[in-house]
């Protein structure tokens, strides 16, 4: 339900960066969303699409990398995937662990829309 609020924050953050870099269009926004982030990727994409109408991000889309949960056992230092949300080290059975991946809710990259280049007549040579 809070995906709408989060979509709005993403839009504002990206628009600020577009202004800073003087980009007119962004094609894709790369994101990492952890399984434990409390955010549903589909609901977020839906909220994003609904929110960008009429903004400078109208033709942009989210490219979401869904990150499964990984733990680091503080007893035996084993690193493992937390399968079926069982937060116990499969090697030594300890529940004393750090979550090393799976809580992300991050923007990672922006991909420009190539129309930026033609609009500015500016070739980055990539």
């Amino acid at each position: 339900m809070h995906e709408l609020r989060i979509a709005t924050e993403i839009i504002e953050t990206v628009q600020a960066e577009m202004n800073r870099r003087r980009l007119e269009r962004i094609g894709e926004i790369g994101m990492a969303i952890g399984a434990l982030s409390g955010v549903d990727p589909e609901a977020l994409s839906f909220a994003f699409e609904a929110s960008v109408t009429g903004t400078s991000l109208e033709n942009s889309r989210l490219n979401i990398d869904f990150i499964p949960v990984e733990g680091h056992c503080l007893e035996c230092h084993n690193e493992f995937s937390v399968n079926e949300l069982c937060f116990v080290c499969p090697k030594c059975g300890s529940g004393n662990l750090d979550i090393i991946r799976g809580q992300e809710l991050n923007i990672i990259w922006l991909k420009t829309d190539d129309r930026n280049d033609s609009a500015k007549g500016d070739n980055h040579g990539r």
Partner: protein
Amino acid sequence: MAGEKIPFEKKVLSENDRLASDIRARLDDHGVMALNLVSSPGSGKTSLLEKTLGALSGRLKMALVAGDVQTRNDAERLEKAGGKIVRPIITGGACHLDARMVGAAIADIDLRNLDVLFVENVGNLVCPSSYDLGEDMKIVLISTTEGDDKPLKYPSMFRRSSVMIINKIDLLGHSDFSLEHVRANALKINPALEIFELSCRTGIGLETWFDWLIRAVARKKGKDLTKASS
């Protein structure tokens, strides 16, 4: 021709996290314990706070922030139960509290004269898990009229909570809810969870919660409140 990929690393909710850190620092400065109560609607957050106010008002100086989507009803219940410092937050439809709302709600509270701040979040096990409010810990409530698999359905919330309170244990046997199952499910998600079983209606189990609360507040305050008279 594909567009250019620009690295741009930015945590979403970083502004909320920054505001939450400010709140946490202010509360820490004054040794105020902050507890963020989360649950589904109807698990008994307000009832637990009413009972806690009724029993401990003479021993602990408590302030309460009551988040509600639409009404002031919870805040009014808490005032009636003896809450002297009650700040309602009406979210106007939003499904969670955020750090900005809590910061504004507690801005005028004299923290020098306070032991514990309760934040009663909006009834919802999903969205509030993403928002740090500057609390020392989240306390998740579940009642015996709900499914005992809720910890598995809402792992993010149960993983981020430090305490689980099972309410309405007087109704055990009237539903398929099993204490054994809910404990096993919750501990699978979070083996460090501290668990209380109680009934706000009959009062059974409340003493254990009160004792824990007094000790936790005393630890934060750095002084022994267990012997304070009322």
